[in-house]
């Protein structure tokens, strides 16, 4: 009798264990299945873009009918560059003069440089200007700092879009050393965006949390206010500097509306990637290979930077939410 009971129990236990195991397998299969499905949703446009950029123009659209969309079944670099496209024996252009590559159609390197230069200037200049302002607000004692802080926080909610047109009227009249006004220049894309209310707020939040003792100790040693900022506060605040840099980078490297307005007649010498992309996209003939080559070259480098520093990216965005 006892043995039978024991036997039943252990078989029940085994059945339970088995059921738990099956449940676990089913759960993880569904779990991973769902995550992989979502991953495909987020990745497919980027994969199609990169794969299409290295395919001959005439099969790109046709390949969209099958999984070939994701397979570089024929490889060519002609979309990027086809230097001899005008010569009869051209390898990358079947009919002479017909199929120039991206680099023959527009100065991509210059445009890429424009974007990098403008974005870097905004980020670097912004780090300095905004952190200094936040330091003054958080750690120096002066009349009016409360009200200035309130005004800056209120400024966060002004959408840039609402001031774009008046801003255009302003930069049209502003003088500059080398030209009649600010239109179609680098600085028109940089200077108006260096000071940023939200960046000041993020710096302020961080600076206010650093214990005052640090200042006092330095002050006793005879350090002045600016030395305290540059030698103590800045080195202690690397995470918030990274956060602001990454958020500003994300906000401005794809800037579109303002460069569209302020560099409308500046041409590729001055326009950044997003604006140049529209000009290129609108140009006949629309060769999807060239467009994909442009999009890939504009996207992939930043994706690589993101992959290298992804921990920083994620932390920055997260802290923007926590503190905002």
């Amino acid at each position, binding site marked *: 009798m006892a043995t039978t009971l024991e036997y039943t129990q252990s078989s029940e236990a085994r059945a339970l264990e088995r059921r738990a195991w099956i449940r676990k397998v089913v759960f993880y299969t569904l779990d991973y299945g769902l995550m992989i499905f979502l991953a495909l949703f987020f990745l497919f446009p980027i994969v*199609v873009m990169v794969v299409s950029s290295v395919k001959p123009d005439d099969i790109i659209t046709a390949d969209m009918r099958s999984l070939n969309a994701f397979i570089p079944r024929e490889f060519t670099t002609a979309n990027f560059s086809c230097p001899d496209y005008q010569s009869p024996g051209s390898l990358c252009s079947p009919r002479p003069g017909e199929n120039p590559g991206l680099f023959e159609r527009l100065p991509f390197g210059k445009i890429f440089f424009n974007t990098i230069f403008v974005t870097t200037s905004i980020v670097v200049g912004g780090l300095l200007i905004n952190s200094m302002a936040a330091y003054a607000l958080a750690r120096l*004692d002066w009349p009016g700092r409360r009200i200035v802080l309130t005004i800056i926080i209120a400024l966060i909610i002004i959408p840039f879009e609402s001031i774009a*047109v*008046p801003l255009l009227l302003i930069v049209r009249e502003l003088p500059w050393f080398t030209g009649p006004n600010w239109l179609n220049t680098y600085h028109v894309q940089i200077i108006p965006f260096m000071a940023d209310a939200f960046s000041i707020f993020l710096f302020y939040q961080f600076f206010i949390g650093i214990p005052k003792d640090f200042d006092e100790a330095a002050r006793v040693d005879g350090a002045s206010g600016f030395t305290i900022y540059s030698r103590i506060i800045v080195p202690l605040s690397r995470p918030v500097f990274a956060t602001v840099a990454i958020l500003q980078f994300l906000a401005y490297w794809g800037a579109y509306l303002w460069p569209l307005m302020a560099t409308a007649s500046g041409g590729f010498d001055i326009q950044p990637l997003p604006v140049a992309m529209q000009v290129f996209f609108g140009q006949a003939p629309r060769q999807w290979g060239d467009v994909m080559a442009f999009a890939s070259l504009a996207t992939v480098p930043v994706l690589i930077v993101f992959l290298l520093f992804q921990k920083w990216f994620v932390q920055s965005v997260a802290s923007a*939410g926590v503190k905002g």
Partner: protein
Amino acid sequence: MAVHVKVRSGGLQRRERYLAYGMMAPAAVLLILFLIVPFVMAFGLSFTNQSLVPPLETVVDETTGETVQRQKPPDFIGTDNYQNLLRIHIFTMEPLVDEQTGEVLRDEAGGIQYERARTYLRPERLEELFQIDLFGTRYLVGAGDASFYRSLLNIFEFVIIVVPVQTSLALFLAMLVNQKIRGANVFRTIYFSPVVTAMAIVAVLWFFLYNPSDGLINNFLKVFNIGPFQWLEHPASALIAIIIMSIWQGVGFQMVIYLAGLQEISEDLYEAASIDGANRIQQFRFVTLPSLRNTTLFVAISTTILAFKLFVQVDVMTFGRGGPENATITPILHMVNEGFRSAQRVGYAAAIAVVFVLIVLAISLIQRRVLSYGDH
């Protein structure tokens, strides 16, 4: 001695004050010149007929007596811009009646025939917004600027769909990648990657994918016998197409914010809940959601504000027109078109900007109230 100390500390205080002014100055000057002044200007310009390229006028210089050409200064026109922008009129449409029999004219399908909308709208210089049948009567709604009202309807539709969908998808993704399982970080990276792409660039890519006849998306859906959809080429689906790609590009950002929120929740809370016999769904309902209240507030409000500013993807994917048939026009696109592109009416565009800011402000205040309701 005491006096000496006091003087020194006063000097120190003064030095600290000057230092503060010095460090504050660059940001202050830039914010005033490039944010506050244009913001005030937008308000002022909205009461004028300022145009982007002012017309030239010939005037006689009073001192020299010579005629000179100069740019015509804008006129103050009061609230004309606002009146034109917001003017709306509802007409009751009369059925067409056969003059001999006195019977109401009907079309082949038996529907009542009405006079053309133009006959009502033209004398008032209005544009047709829509017609609607209510209780057997047909009403015609005309607006001074039908595109503006259309842009408001579109943006409300966009916000009402995008904010809840994107917020809950972000939370769902965050919970997926927050699991303590192998590869979770890889998926987090993948879901976030569209955020680092430039909208104006990937919008072109999606334009290609949305192609109705040989785009990848329709070809993919065909496998499941769905579609084909006209996507960007049909008024009924164009905004949906914009919505899908907007969520694709933006949701990773909110996911990461939720992820940070999830990681702040103490394990003890879940343990306590499971001891009380709460299953996964109950844990989500009674532990996760309440703990994420502030995160949700932030995500919902920031997504709303971002969504209201919809412009880039529409501008790129509809070539600046907001078509088809104004189905994707947005307030910002309308403002850019009025102020910068075809019409170049800066004063009018400024009025759009002012109304836009007021709406966004009002919505985010209401939202803050509603979402934080019950917070004490």
